């Protein structure tokens, strides 16, 4: 992959990621997050992981963020825009970020696999949908099923909660 493309998409991700936090308008924040996701998808595609890249767009940019935007548009935007920045909240947020980065660094330092280069894939076309599917349904079958049950429970929970609201 061309390093120029990597830097273009990585910068795009970071700039729009910052824009999500900095923007005072919630709709602008949500749209910045969409662009950030598109940059991430482009990075996946440039690593030949077409399936992950496309699913990133399909699930996050195409479905989750549309729902987010849908909810944000129904809320009162003016209140959010007028709200002043709170110094204590600023400091708290900065502290949490610092602790998180420090912990991440401490963990990654003791993670030997992270320093080894990944063995190169054999050249030529890969059917990555098939490969992901095979791994998912053979090696990682149990976690996959558990996640399925978890999502089913969450769905039923949402239905029950929203039904109770109606009464």
């Amino acid at each position, binding site marked *: 992959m061309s390093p120029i493309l990597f830097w273009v998409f990585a910068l795009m991700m970071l700039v729009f990621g910052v824009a999500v936090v900095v923007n005072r308008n919630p709709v602008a924040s949500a749209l910045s997050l969409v662009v950030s996701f598109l940059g991430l998808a482009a990075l996946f595609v440039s690593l030949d992981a077409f399936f992950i890249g496309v699913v990133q767009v399909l699930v996050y940019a*195409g479905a989750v963020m549309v729902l987010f935007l849908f909810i944000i548009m129904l809320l009162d935007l003016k209140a959010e825009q007028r709200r002043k920045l709170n110094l204590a909240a600023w400091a708290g947020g900065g502290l949490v970020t610092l602790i998180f980065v420090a912990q991440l660094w401490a963990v990654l330092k003791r993670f030997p696999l992270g320093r080894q280069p990944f063995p190169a894939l054999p050249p030529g076309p890969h059917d990555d949908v098939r490969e992901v599917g095979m791994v998912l349904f053979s090696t990682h079958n149990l976690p996959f099923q558990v996640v399925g049950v978890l999502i089913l429970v969450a769905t039923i929970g949402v239905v029950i909660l929203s039904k109770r609201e109606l009464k």
Partner: protein
Amino acid sequence: MMSFLSSSDFWFLVGTSLAKTIFLIFLVVLPMVSYTVYAERRVSAAMQDRSGPNRVGFPISLLGFKKDFSPFLGGLGQPVADAVKFLLKEDFVPGHVNKPYFWLAPCLAMIPSIVVLAAIPFGSTFLGVDMVVANLNVGILYIFAISSVGVYGIVLAGWSSNSKYPFLGGIRSTSQMISYELGLGFSAVPVLLIAGSTSLTKITQYQVDHGWLLLPFTAGMPGLREILLWIPVVIAFVTFTICMFAETNRLPFDLPESETELVAGYHTEYSSMKFALFFLGEYTAMIAGSSLIVVLFLGGWNFPFIPDGSAGWFWGLVNISVFFGKVAVLLFFFIWVRWTLPRFRYDQLMKLGWLYIFEIALVNVFLTAGILAFTK
């Protein structure tokens, strides 16, 4: 991926991709869009016992000829006149809109429906070059992903207009497109199971070898397996087509812009070329949707007794024409339905999507998998 290509191969790839893109967009799809609009007006006129636009010819009298050129049907110059009209009209931006998003929305409505076309195999080979701009092994997922991004154009148009009817249109469109995306995705799964691939090129090749999925006899007498598989394929075709109507906001599901309730829905505040971009985006999405239906169910560029592009450049061209001929038939079907069926009510639309289409498509996946497992 580029690393194992040598330099000359790389430039050949770039050149052919550009040539294919320009051919597909500027010589095929955009003219097809403008003549679909013309066809819409003529077909609706015919169904309502009117004449429709039958006067405008090509104004070659401007070039010194004695009469304008008005070929067989008449009115064939109408799309040109429409385009000139859209470009010359005043582009009025109301004062109460949110300007950056108001400008962004028409672009977002048009671009995804064009980008989608990249993964569609619109012909076999022509002079040894595959007639698909990007031969992705996740072709169908790519198409779903990009078209799901297309909803932002409509949502932003509705929101940034800062006015009640466009806003209602945008809200309706969001929930409609999210609801029907599920049905659309699940309706395509049986085809993927049968062809064993998510690559649109491979799905077409499967249909060349085994007969079109919807008409299995195009490659000789179908066996028991093909006949059994025909049942889920027909169900999938019906649900997929219904969902495609909802995804492209066409009647009977054009709730986002239903003019009797919402003036013109999400594009009420738009005029001139900005409005035209929404209009063109809708028709381009129709062409992309029809192309997808042709690739998945109607054999793509294949036609019985016509060889593929390896038999000579002429047959390559014939294959491309066959593909767009099938797309044109489907476009006629889209128009035909629009002027036949009344509009759904909004709750009926949601009920149809969630309670019927989604469940039928889901059960259909299991039915297909069962048939495939037992007739191995």
